């Protein structure tokens, strides 16, 4: 890692030095030619000879401007513009003899045009009232450049390696096109990575009220940044997409495509794909995200997944149609209907070998197993959603969805259990053949109203219903041979027929008018009162018919111990009330907000279980008090920093399920035979969590910085745990018990730093987690306190030299350990570290190379696993609509799919089949047309 880091820093230093040979400077003042008064906020732009924008700024309140670090010995043009005045242009050149120039620019009023709203020079950026407007026409870029590449050129805007966009350090949660989510999709990259710069009239960035806090009266609503991409009037309809086909060695193939068609009120998206390279095609929404026109992909999203077990053949087809009943550019006004359809299929073949070391009281066990599994799944889903919103305060959402899935699976496995001297103690050979058909559907209604006129009518209501039906048939054969005790040998050929039906109804009402109802105009000292009403009814019916093959009778006979009918009905009713109070303070330079929230709720539950097995006929009732408390503090220093701190506490209860109390014990898998415990108590969990984040919000800061740390602690009373009895033959009997109180805690932290150096950028992202779990278990009758710890550190460094070169270095280190206090039990520790290096070189406008290398070391595996991929792509045809791509995967042919796992029982290492070296040649065509006329493209 250090070696790579050193090389990276050296390279970055050289590249930075090369990019900073500009020591020229110009400065000046802009005045009105008649009155000689200074003009504030005049736009000053510096263009290169080829009209590329070099830099720009607005004059200060004294009309002054200053541009340091301009290139020497280069023809430059100074453009000055101000609404109502004639624009000013002047060519100049700085050199080492005269590296600085000063200008006094007197602008005459534009008397030719009485309206004087015609701006003759192109202004790259300006403030229009409270809105920052970016004018794409002022940025000289390739004709094929998309919105994201344009945004990358704007100072103050950072596009992070994970796709997040920030403006002056503040994230932009909402990116709209003409006031709406583009194509009704939530992923903004569908707009920013497809819409060409030439189709955009302007990009507006403005602040608006954070609607997520609108339900609260006394909370001063934060403002959040929204970005709106306003299309040119003749570009409000168009189409774009991708069709790709590739074939390679080892009969590897892939094909994917998507096509989007839109106008002011309608949009249609269709997509599909198939491959056998472990690449996810996904739903139609994912296809739209994956098949964007954007040419730079330094993170290698959406390529073959070598880390996935087995080989998958997959396909997916989908479509989404959306119709807006009204055309509006108001982001809070909707009246549209959207329907979607997806058909997916996957065939996955996995074979693997696992070596496991298991700790027991008197002996250690080594378990070697091999298995193979072939699963074939076909799925269909369709849905329709109607959304209506007259304003941000009134919303209606109606949706209905259905899913159909069929799957077929075959599996074989062989397990051998050995003792510490590696003597064979038992074997188990099994195979299984299963089919499953499942159908599900749901319908939901969400209605909210937050009327400023009538507080009594403020509410948020959701009502939903769902239905599921699963039918499955499984034939499992299992032969167990014990070398320690041959009398314990078993052999099964068992046929399971399960039919499961479930339905559920949910009703949730948050009523925000309670205070008004109870106290009329009296505001209860600023304390908000919300009423909560939640009601759920679930019914689950299952019919299990289990037959064992009788070799004497040569037919399947009913197993009366396992065959059963069960009907479980659960009613949950949770009334509650929420008290909220906020304290706000605003000053010229800072703002401070503290909000407190206390939720008092009683969870009342009734469960009725009726079964053909008499012992399982149980009716139970519970009533739990489940309070929660929240504290949120934020402190912002204007144009400097924003700090957020939140703290929360909540108490929850869970009660043991009927299957944990009265388990129907099936001993077909002798290595895991589970028994119930009717004496199990309810578990109480007290959760405490906190979050702290800091964001730098300095508009002209060199560095953009944000960091956060969050933690969670859960204290469990009467947690449910296992008591395991190990047999020397490897047989395991598992009893469910209540253990001693236990604690889990976790800590997550991250920090991001970004620096833009002219058009280059350096980004450093770090994130890490610490996890700790303390729980009590019984192993072979010995009580053991188990402590599991995990640490992960993820460092990501990315340097972009304009769009020419992108270098990326990432290091991921994770450590998992498990320690036991029980005498004779062993502790385990596994460390995994992975270093990834990536480089993207856009050699010319059309040709690019990309390579990624990752090395993985694992303390349980002697060899270092290296995975090296290389790609090159060539764009051709008009508008770069054709792409030829050559991909070479696993160049060193050294990749192995290895997974390690640590838990209270011990460690295990699994090696599975997966992708190996292959080469793939892909051709893709990107059909694109925006607007009826291409004349101004």
């Amino acid at each position, binding site marked *: 890692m250090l070696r790579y880091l050193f090389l990276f820093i050296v390279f970055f230093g050289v590249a930075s030095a090369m990019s900073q040979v500009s020591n020229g400077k110009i400065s000046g003042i802009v005045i*009105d030619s008649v009155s000689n008064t200074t003009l504030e906020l005049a736009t000053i732009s510096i263009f290169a000879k080829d009209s590329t924008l070099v830099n720009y700024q607005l004059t200060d309140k*004294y009309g002054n401007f200053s541009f340091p670090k301009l290139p020497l010995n280069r023809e430059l043009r100074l453009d000055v513009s101000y609404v*109502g005045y004639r624009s000013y242009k002047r060519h100049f050149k700085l050199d080492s003899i005269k590296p600085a120039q000063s200008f006094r620019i007197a602008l005459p009023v534009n008397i030719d045009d009485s309206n004087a709203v015609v701006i003759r020079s192109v202004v790259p950026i300006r403030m229009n009232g409270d809105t920052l407007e970016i004018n794409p026409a002022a940025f000289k870029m390739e004709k094929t450049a998309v919105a994201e590449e344009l945004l990358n050129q704007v100072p103050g805007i950072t596009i992070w390696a994970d796709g997040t966009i920030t403006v002056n350090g503040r994230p932009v949660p909402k990116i709209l096109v003409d006031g709406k989510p583009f194509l009704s999709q939530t992923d903004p990259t569908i707009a920013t990575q497809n819409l060409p710069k030439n189709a955009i009239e302007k990009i507006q960035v403005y602040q608006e009220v954070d609607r997520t806090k609108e339900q609260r009266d006394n909370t001063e609503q934060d403002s959040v940044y929204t970005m709106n991409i306003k299309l040119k009037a003749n570009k409000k309809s168009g189409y774009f997409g991708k069709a790709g086909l590739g074939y390679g060695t080892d009969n590897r193939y892939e094909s994917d495509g998507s096509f989007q068609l839109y106008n002011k009120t309608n949009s249609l998206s269709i997509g599909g794909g198939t491959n056998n390279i472990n690449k996810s095609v996904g739903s139609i929404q994912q296809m739209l995200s994956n098949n964007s026109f954007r040419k730079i992909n330094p993170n290698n999203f959406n390529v073959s997944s070598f880390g996935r077990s087995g080989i998958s053949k997959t396909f997916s087809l989908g479509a989404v149609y959306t119709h807006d009943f009204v055309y509006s550019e108001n982001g809070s006004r909707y009246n549209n209907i959207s329907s979607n359809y997806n058909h997916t299929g996957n065939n996955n073949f996995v074979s693997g070998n696992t070596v496991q070391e298991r700790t027991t009281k008197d002996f250690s066990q080594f378990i070697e197993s091999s298995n193979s599994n072939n699963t074939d799944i076909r799925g269909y889903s369709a849905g329709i959603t109607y959304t209506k919103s007259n304003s941000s305060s009134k919303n209606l959402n109606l949706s209905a969805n259905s899913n159909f899935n069929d799957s077929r699976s075959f599996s074989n496995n062989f397990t051998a259990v050995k003792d510490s001297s590696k003597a064979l103690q038992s074997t188990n050979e099994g195979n299984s053949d299963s089919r499953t058909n499942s159908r599900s559907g749901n319908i939901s209604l969400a209605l909210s109203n937050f009327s*400023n*006129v009538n507080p009594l009518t403020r509410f948020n209501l959701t009502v939903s219903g769902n239905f599921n039906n699963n039918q499955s048939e499984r034939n499992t054969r299992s032969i167990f041979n014990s070398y320690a005790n041959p009398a314990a040998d078993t052999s099964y050929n068992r046929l399971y027929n399960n039919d499961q039906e479930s339905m559920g109804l949910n009703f949730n009402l948050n009523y925000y008018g309670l205070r008004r109802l109870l106290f009329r105009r009296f505001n209860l000292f600023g304390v908000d009162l919300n009423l909560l009403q939640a009601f759920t009814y679930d019914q689950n019916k299952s019919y299990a018919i289990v037959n064992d093959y009788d070799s004497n009778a040569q037919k399947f006979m009913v197993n009366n111990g396992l065959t059963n009918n069960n009907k479980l009905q659960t009613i949950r009713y949770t009334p509650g009330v929420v008290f909220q109070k906020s304290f706000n303070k605003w*000053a010229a330079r800072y703002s401070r907000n503290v909000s407190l929230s206390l939720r008092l709720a009683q969870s009342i539950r009734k469960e009725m279980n009726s079964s053909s097995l008499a012992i399982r006929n149980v009716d139970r009732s519970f009533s739990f008090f489940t309070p929660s408390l929240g504290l949120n503090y934020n402190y912002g220093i204007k144009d400097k920093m924003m700090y957020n701190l939140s703290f929360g506490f909540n108490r929850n209860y869970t009660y043991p399920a009927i299957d944990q109390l009265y388990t129907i014990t099936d001993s077909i898998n002798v290595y895991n035979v589970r028994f119930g415990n009717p004496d199990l108590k309810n578990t109480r969990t007290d959760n405490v969590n906190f979050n702290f984040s800091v964001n730098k919000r300095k508009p002209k800061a060199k560095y953009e910085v944000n960091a956060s740390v969050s933690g969670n602690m859960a204290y469990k009373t009467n947690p449910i745990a296992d008591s395991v009895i190990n047999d020397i033959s490897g047989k395991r009997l598992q009893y469910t018990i209540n253990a001693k109180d236990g604690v889990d805690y976790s800590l997550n932290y991250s920090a991001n730093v970004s620096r833009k150096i002219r058009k280059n950028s350096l980004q450093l992202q770090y994130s890490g987690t610490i996890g700790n779990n303390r729980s009590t278990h019984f192993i072979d009758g010995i009580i053991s306190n188990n402590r599991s710890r995990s640490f992960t550190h993820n460092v990501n460094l990315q340097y972009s030299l304009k769009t020419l070169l992108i270098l990326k270095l990432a290091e991921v280190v994770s450590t998992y350990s498990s320690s036991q206090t029980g005498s004779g039990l062993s502790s385990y520790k596994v460390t995994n570290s992975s270093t990834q290096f990536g480089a993207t070189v856009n050699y010319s406008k059309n040709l690019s190379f990309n390579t990624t290398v990752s090395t993985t070391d694992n303390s349980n595996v002697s060899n270092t696993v290296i995975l090296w991929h290389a790609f090159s792509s060539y764009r051709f045809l008009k508008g770069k609509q054709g792409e030829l791509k050559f991909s070479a995967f696993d160049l060193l042919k050294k990749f192995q799919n290895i997974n390690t796992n640590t838990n209270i029982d011990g460690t295990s290492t699994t090696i599975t089949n997966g992708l190996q070296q292959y080469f793939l040649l892909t051709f893709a065509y990107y059909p694109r047309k925006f607007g009826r006329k291409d004349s101004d493209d």
Partner: protein
Amino acid sequence: MGIFKRNYCCFFFCCLLSGRLLAQPQKLYLNPATAGPAAQSNFIEITRFIPIDAATEKISTNTSLFITKNYWVAYDYIEKKLSFFTKQGKFIKFIAMKKYGEPVIVYDSKAELLKFNIKNKNYTLTNNDLVAIRAHYAKKANQKYFKNYEINLKEESLQIKRTTTDPYFIINARPFYDDYYYRSDMSIQPRAKDTSGYELQLLEDHKPVKSFFPFNRTGNHIFRYANAQMYLSDTDTAYIKYTSRPFSPVIYKMNKNSISPVYEIVLPLENAMPSSRFINGFKSKADWDNFQNSNGAIFFSFNSIRDMGRHLFFGIRFLRNYESFLYDKNTAKFYKSKMIKADSSQYNIQLLQNGLGQYADSHYYALIPAQSFLDFYEKNKEKKIVYPPELERFFKTATKNSNPVMVEYKIKD
């Protein structure tokens, strides 16, 4: 719908008729986009600099200023602090207003009182509540929603005292002259029984004595979501005020109980509300919000109108912006006030950035941050600039965190 259209037609006919009967206003053509810059010294003569002398108190420039007979009173609306100074800039005392709530402050020059009307923070009132309360403003039960305080400026102690709630405050009426008050209530009540509303009413003894500009209080009126009101701008004569109506770029002069248009500000078409909106109004709050977002440059109302012989000053509230303008009657030219820049003769101190200062005794007053003076001083240290003695003294001790300087100035005639 037909009824509404007929009502609107009547309304416009009345407006038209009343306009015809009154004198023809002078037309002034203003293009907000091209109103130019000018040198501040052409219009303003600075008469005094008075550094605020408050060693223990930090005085902000985020203030509303009241010039009373003996004091300058600054209300810091961020820190919610009321500060009293002598007219020589000497700090006297401050009163923390936070515990009282957000006040509407009125200076009663006749009685030498500062009156405070504060919504009782124990109650949350919607617009409908306010309409209901104002309809029965005399009811004692409705007085609890407001708290009134006053400071008697004749008393040296300058104590704030609770007083009984003044019904004028409940109905949001403001003093006009003598015992007359004025009120502007343009709330639209779609289900109101009484459909008649007036944009402006003169009140005496809490009762309307004269009403101007009738409108229909029901239906989709253009006022429905606009939250509009008419304000009277002061002149040197107590019973003469200037005012304007929402969406109508005409400046009216009120002389006691008569009103007449004096200036019609002719704006480009892009700044005018489409005529269809006067007939159809806005269907919903969303329709209004959407319209505002897409038509931010449309004229909404005038405020801070001041007719000063050679000059006319006013602010324009557009749907999403605010600008103020100065009109030179001699040259018939408009200037954007924030583009009226001070040169070195006035130490680069911008006095019209946020409109005209507070007016009293033929002078205007504005609090200017110390930083603005120091910026100029530091920049011009090498030059031999002669400063008035009070500024010379100020520069010797001032830092960027020093208290502001009160600037007294006149508009040149």
